[in-house]
C-alpha cells in the first residue's frame, strides 16, 4: 500500500465533545482531546470498544454535534459554523452511512425518492436532471434502475445498504463517514459491500472515516488506523503497522481478543482476556485512561497522562512505556518463536504476514 500524500480533507483539532454535566453532575467526556486528519483518497479506520467515543467522533466530523472545544475542518472550512450557508457547504462535502440499513431508510419512500432527497434539499426543488443522477448511482452501487420504484421492505439487507450508499454519494462528497456499515450483514454480503466500497473509492476518489469494531474489516479496508479508548486516541499509524506491530497495550489486547480461524495445532494459547468493562466516560481514570485494565500499568500511569507521541515515522502511541513494551513479545506468549510467526498466529486475519 503506497503512502497517501498529506492533503487533509478532514482535520480534527484538539476536539472535545462533552454531554450533559448540569446540576453538579460531571459531563460525559465522549471525545476528550483528539487530533486526527483524514487525507483525500485515504481510508482511516477508527476502532475501539463501545463507549470509546468513536461514533461521537464520527458525528462531530459530520457537524452533527457541537464541539465543546477544538475544531473540525472539512476542506479547510469549519463544519460547525454560525453562518448557515458556509456550514451547509462544508457539510455537503461529508456524508454518512450507518450500521442498520433498514432503520436509515423511510419505509414509505421509494428507493429513488430516498436517494433523490438530498438533491432536492440542496436545490430547493426537484429538477429533471436529478432522476438521471439517481439512475446512474443505482447502477454504480450494483442495483438495477428498476429498483428505484421499490420500497425498502422489498429489498434484502445488502440491497438496502447499497441504497444507503447511493444516497450517501448523491451529493458527490469528498469524505464518507462509515459507521459500522457492514456489521449487520452476513459474511458473504459483507464481502460484496466491502468490495463495493473499494471500487467506489477508486472511481469517485473518496476518503473514508471507517468506524468499526471488527479488526478483520479494518485491516482489509484501512490505509491508516486510529485506536480510540474513553474519548482519546491510544495509537495511530499505518494499518499494517498497527495490526502487525501494535505498540499500545490496548491495541494489543484488542488484537489478542480477535478469534483465530486456525486449526488448533496452529493456534497460540489465547492470552487472558482484558478484564472488566470500559470505565464510565463521565469519570475517566486519572493519568492514563487505560491503566485500570492494563496489565503493564505502574504507579506513574495514574499520575501522568501519556501524550500521543511519534514512536516511528507516522506511528503515534500514547503510552509511557511503548518502547519498553515493544521489546516484550506479544501478550501471553510463552515460547520464543520468531516475532512474525508469533504475531501471525495471533489472529486469523493476519496469519501469513504482510501482503
Amino acid at each position: 500500500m503506497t503512502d497517501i500524500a498529506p492533503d487533509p480533507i478532514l482535520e480534527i483539532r484538539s476536539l472535545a465533545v462533552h454531554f450533559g454535566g448540569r446540576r453538579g453532575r460531571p459531563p460525559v467526556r465522549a471525545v476528550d482531546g483528539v487530533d486526527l486528519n483524514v487525507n483525500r483518497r485515504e481510508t482511516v479506520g477508527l476502532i475501539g470498544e463501545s463507549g470509546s467515543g468513536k461514533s461521537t467522533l464520527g458525528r462531530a466530523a459530520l457537524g452533527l454535534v457541537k464541539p465543546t472545544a477544538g475544531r473540525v475542518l472539512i476542506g479547510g472550512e469549519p463544519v460547525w459554523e454560525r453562518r448557515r450557508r458556509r456550514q451547509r457547504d462544508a457539510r455537503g462535502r461529508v456524508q454518512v452511512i450507518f450500521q442498520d440499513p433498514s432503520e436509515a431508510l423511510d419505509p414509505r419512500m421509494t428507493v429513488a425518492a430516498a436517494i433523490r432527497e438530498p438533491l432536492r434539499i440542496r436545490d430547493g426543488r426537484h429538477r429533471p436532471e436529478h432522476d438521471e443522477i439517481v439512475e446512474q448511482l443505482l447502477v454504480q452501487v450494483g442495483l438495477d434502475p428498476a429498483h428505484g420504484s421499490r420500497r425498502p421492505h422489498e429489498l434484502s439487507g445488502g440491497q438496502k445498504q447499497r441504497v444507503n450508499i447511493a444516497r450517501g454519494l448523491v451529493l458527490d462528497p469528498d469524505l464518507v463517514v462509515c459507521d459500522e456499515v457492514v456489521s449487520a450483514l452476513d459474511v458473504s454480503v459483507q464481502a460484496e459491500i466491502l468490495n463495493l466500497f473499494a471500487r467506489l473509492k477508486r472511481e469517485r476518489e473518496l476518503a473514508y472515516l471507517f468506524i468499526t469494531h471488527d479488526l478483520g474489516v479494518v485491516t482489509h479496508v484501512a490505509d491508516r488506523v486510529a485506536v480510540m479508548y474513553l474519548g482519546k486516541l491510544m495509537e495511530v499509524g499505518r494499518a499494517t503497522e498497527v495490526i502487525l506491530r501494535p505498540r499500545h497495550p490496548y491495541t494489543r489486547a484488542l488484537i489478542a481478543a480477535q478469534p483465530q480461524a486456525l486449526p488448533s495445532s496452529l493456534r497460540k494459547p489465547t492470552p487472558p482476556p482484558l478484564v472488566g468493562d470500559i470505565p464510565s466516560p463521565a469519570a475517566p481514570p486519572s493519568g492514563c485512561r487505560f491503566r485500570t485494565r492494563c496489565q503493564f500499568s505502574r504507579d506513574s500511569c495514574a499520575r501522568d497522562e501519556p501524550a500521543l507521541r511519534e514512536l516511528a515515522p507516522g506511528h503515534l502511541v500514547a503510552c509511557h512505556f511503548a518502547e519498553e513494551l515493544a521489546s516484550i513479545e506479544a501478550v501471553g506468549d510463552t515460547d520464543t518463536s520468531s516475532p512474525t510467526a508469533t504475531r501471525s498466529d495471533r489472529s486469523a486475519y493476519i496469519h501469513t504476514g504482510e501482503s
Partner: protein
Amino acid sequence: MATETSTELRPAGAPGEGPLLEVRGLSVHLPTAAGEVQILDDVSFSVGRGTTLGLIGESGSGKSMTALAILRLLPRGARVSGQVLLNGVDLLAQPLSAMSSIRGRRISMVFQEPMSALDPVFTIGQQISQTLRAHHACSRRAARDAAIEMLAAVGIPDPARRFHEYPHQLSGGMRQRAMIAMALICKPELLIADEPTTAVDITTQAQLLALLKELNRDRRTSILFISHDIGVIAEMCQDVVVMYAGQVVEACPTDELLEHPRHPYSSGLMWAVPRIESKGGELFAIPGRVPLPGALPSGCAFHPRCGHARPSCATHSQPLIDAGSPSQRHLVRCHRQEELRLPGVLDKPPTAETS
C-alpha cells in the same frame, strides 16, 4: 432421502454409551400465508458428552430453527418429523408438557440479545433463583445462595449486590453473563448458545468464550454453539456442522473443516472473511443470496451460487455422504466432492473470478 445410520463424528467415549444429543432426520415445515414451507430438511448430527459442536451458516440457513426444534419451541402449526434423542429418549415423542421439565433443567439456551431474554421487571437474582426453584424443591434462601454463587462463577463482580439489580442496570457483557448464569443454574447437560457473542464487543466476546470453554472443561457441560463466525467456531468447537438452506451440507472436526473443506459453500464462507492478505484486493464473495424457504432451487440448493456447479447439480439432489477416512468421518453434500480441491484457511486465497 437416505439418512446416515450414525450421526456421530467421533466414536463414543465409553462402549455402549451413545451421544448426549442425537438429532436424526429432523425436518420442519411451517405454515405461511403462501402455504406450508420446508424450513429444515433431514438435519442429522450429534453432540457427544462433554463436547462442543458448532452450527455455522448465514442467516436463513436454519441454525436457530434447529435449536428451537430441539427444544420444541417452534411456532404453532409447525410440522416436525424425525427424532431428537436426549440420552436415547426421543423428545419429539414426549407430551409437550414433559418439555417444561427438560427446558432449563437438562437443556438450556442462551440467546444473542440478553435484553429480550431477561425480564425487565424482575431483578436478575429473582430470575435466576426462580429458575432453580421451578425445577428443584429448595428454600428461597438456598436458591438465593446458589444464584449468588452462580453469578460469581460466571465472573460477575460483587454478585451479592448484582443479585438485586435489574437487567437495565447491567452492561451488555454483564447481562450476557447473567443469562449464562440463569441457563446454568440447574446444571444442564446441554447448553445451546445461539450467537451469544454477536452483540458484544470483541473484548467481552473473548471473556464470554473463555467462560464457556471453562464451563465445558470443568463442568463437562456439552455445548451446541450456533454462530456465523468461523473464528468463534474455531475457538470454541471440536466439531462443526455447516448448514445451508435448511440442510446440513458438511460436518466434520473443526480443524478438518478449516484445512480441508469439502463443500464449496464452507470454503466460500471462510474466504469471504476480510483479512490482511485480502488487503488491496477483492474479497471473495459468494454470489447471490441464501434462497428463501419455499423457493429452493432444484437439485443441490447451493448450485445457483456455486462456482463449481455442473448441469447435473441443477437436476439431482445429493445425499449427505461420508467422504472421510475410517478414523475420521467427514460428511459432505456435494456431487463433486471427490474431484474438487477447495482452499482452506491455510491455502492461498481464491480470486473472485475463479472461486
